[in-house]
């Protein structure tokens, strides 16, 4: 099975290595490889656990198995955080450092990445303990004040520990953002005038917009740097109000006389709760920017428009949260209504980075001598899902449709379409593409990879489509037992889920057998020639 990522066209800026005198490149490569592999195995273990939990949720909804009511909601809470943050988010946070190194931006210090890793691991342990063992079932958004109205199912102490655990995951995200900025805004930019202003400008795409004012010896900064850096700034800022909310939850857990305004708490939650989608999507976009040109055999077709789009993302991403609160328009409370009115167009503005990225990727593939293998097929499937889920996102951003869609299974179908069928397929594609060079051994069986691909696509699309139809029919979200009118489609979706699970078992077998293979004769050969195999 093909194990190498083909090189990009000769002379492209993304092939330029950067050797930091403080830490020689081979040393950084070896340590980054070990670090990224550790994140990949940890996040994949979280996928297994959260995937099983997700299956239990749907089996109960289909009335196939029995689960205690509160346990179902505790499982739902663990599944949401586990799948979204601990699997997809964590994986993409880890792979960031590999992609950055490959485009000539090696990690400059491992202090922050290690903090990212260990705080996420500690946070996940706390979340598992408080949900599955102590019964915290407030959902992954734990909408205030629900954590303090458990109806006797969990204590305020458990709420405090849960909030602390999520806070640790937040610390992980903050450490990741800082590490990415430290890696990007660095000498690796090879700025002609090496000032902080020049470095910041180059990192955020000003070199594409004003090439005579922001010059680099690279010719231009590699495109993947843009989404990584934009995401780092946005997530850093977006995590802060959420961290404050978590601290306030902890305070209330020890002093029940303390409370927060419910609307304010909702705004603090969603100031993070929407941008966190981009903790997954932007690194995913960067990874597409890196991998697709290599399979297409040409540099990414992109110009100034992409730089403008990412600057829009940098600013607008912080001003879209209120679209999650469209339905909160209390009488006489004009602030929330005004926020809703403003944040429909700002949310629409966030379509631009996706639309222009898809255009660039499509133009890069168009009439190219594209190399088809399991990795590149997964990427293509993920890109098409990006388009499909993006269209759903526009619908969700439209306030006028909310009375039909809000808190229905349509929303659940949409975010599984985005998280699993866009980011998830990218993650699998990245595993097929990067693991050979990371592990120093090729995949065992390409045919099993194809079975994994098609089983995942058919299984997952069948399942999310059922959920979306149910949502349009008014099926409520977060119901342990759905009304009987939705039972038929739930059972149909279980058939698709069985196919999806079978495909993942095939993947697990392929991975297991691959891990048992002999490594390449010279594992370091994957680093021959600087940043390219």
């Amino acid at each position, binding site marked *: 099975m093909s194990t190498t990522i083909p090189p990009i066209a000769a002379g492209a800026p993304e092939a330029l290595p950067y050797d930091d005198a403080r830490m020689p490149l081979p040393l950084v490569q070896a340590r980054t490889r070990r670090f990224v592999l550790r994140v990949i195995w940890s996040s994949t273990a979280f996928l297994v656990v959260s995937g099983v939990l997700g299956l239990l949720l749907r089996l109960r909804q289909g009335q196939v198995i029995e689960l205690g009511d509160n346990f179902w909601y505790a499982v739902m809470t663990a599944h949401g955080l586990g799948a979204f943050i601990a699997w997809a988010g964590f994986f993409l946070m880890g792979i960031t450092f590999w992609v950055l190194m490959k485009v000539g931006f090696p990690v400059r210090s491992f202090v922050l990445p290690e903090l990212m890793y260990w705080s996420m691991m500690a946070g996940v342990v706390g979340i598992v303990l408080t949900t599955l063992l102590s019964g915290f079932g407030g959902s992954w958004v734990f909408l205030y004040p629900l954590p303090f*109205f458990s109806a006797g199912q969990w204590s305020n102490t458990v709420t405090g520990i849960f909030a602390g655990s999520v806070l640790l995951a937040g610390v992980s995200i903050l450490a990741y953002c800082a590490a990415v900025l430290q890696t990007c805004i660095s000498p690796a930019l090879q700025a002609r005038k090496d000032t902080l202003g020049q470095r910041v400008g180059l990192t955020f795409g000003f070199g594409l917009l004003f090439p005579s004012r922001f010059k680099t010896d690279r010719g231009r900064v590699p495109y993947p740097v843009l989404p990584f850096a934009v995401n780092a700034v946005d997530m850093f800022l977006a995590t802060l109000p959420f961290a404050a909310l978590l601290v306030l939850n902890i305070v209330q857990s020890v002093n029940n006389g303390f409370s927060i305004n419910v609307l304010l708490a909702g705004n603090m939650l969603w100031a993070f709760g929407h941008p966190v989608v981009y903790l997954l999507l932007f690194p995913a976009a960067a990874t597409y920017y890196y991998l697709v040109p290599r399979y297409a055999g040409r540099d990414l077709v992109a110009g100034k428009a992409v730089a403008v789009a990412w600057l829009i993302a940098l600013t607008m991403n912080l001003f879209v949260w209120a679209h999650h609160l469209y339905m909160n328009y209390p009488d006489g409370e004009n602030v929330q209504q005004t926020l809703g009115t403003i944040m429909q167009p700002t949310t629409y503005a966030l379509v631009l980075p996706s639309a222009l990225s898809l*255009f660039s990727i499509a133009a890069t593939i168009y009439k*190219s001598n594209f190399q088809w293998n399991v990795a590149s097929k997964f990427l293509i499937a993920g890109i098409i899902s990006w388009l499909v889920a993006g269209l759903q996102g526009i619908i969700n951003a439209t306030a006028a449709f909310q009375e039909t869609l809000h808190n229905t299974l349509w929303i659940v179908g949409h975010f599984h379409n985005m998280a699993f069928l866009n980011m998830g397929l990218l993650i699998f594609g990245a595993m097929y593409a990067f693991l050979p060079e990371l592990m120093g051994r090729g995949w065992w069986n390409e045919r099993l990879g194809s079975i994994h691909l098609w089983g995942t696509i058919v299984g997952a699309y069948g399942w999310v489509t059922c959920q979306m139809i149910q949502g349009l029919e*008014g099926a409520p979200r977060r119901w342990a037992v759905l009304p009987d009118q939705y039972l038929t489609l739930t059972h149909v979706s279980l058939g698709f889920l069985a196919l999806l699970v079978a495909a993942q078992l095939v993947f697990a077998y392929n991975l297991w057998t691959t891990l048992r293979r002999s490594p390449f004769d010279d594992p370091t050969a994957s680093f021959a020639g600087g940043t390219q195999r």
Partner: protein
Amino acid sequence: MMTSLGSGIAIGYLIFVVLGLIISIAILWSTRAGRRDGGQGVDLEKAERAEPWWGVFVVGLLAILLGLTIWQAPWFTENDDPKDVQVKVTGIQFGFLVQPTQVKVGQDVEFAVTSKDVNHAMALYNPKGQMIMNVQAIPDYTISRSYRFTEPGTYEIRCLEFCGYQHHKMIYPAFQVTA
């Protein structure tokens, strides 16, 4: 069974998905030509020049959608005109207090929705099982939403905002609309 808005959303979405799939397949199909000529048969600079125009096109489409829909946001469609009857709906773990429990077809009914504890939502389902209203119930706040019933029958209120371990049992089964 979908409402007319639900059906409209589904149809609009499907049209764009099919268009997107057709374009995607055409682009992927074009790589057959790329294989024959080594990927040299395309003017990449022309594609790069087209990118801003694609951006303008997308912005235009979104501006049209915004102009058509923003005035239909729930807070813009509600007015202060006096209504025939007000129904107070209060969510409390895990049930609804509804007063009065019966209205008539053709009346302008204002639902004033609030909560005594956590966030809930009042979703109203007609006798055919279609969701015809969806209003948040927020503690310390009230949201008013109006509706004129056209069909008599027994309507059901379900909670649509997750509110705890009996959330799926938070149903008011018998809101009556008489002829």
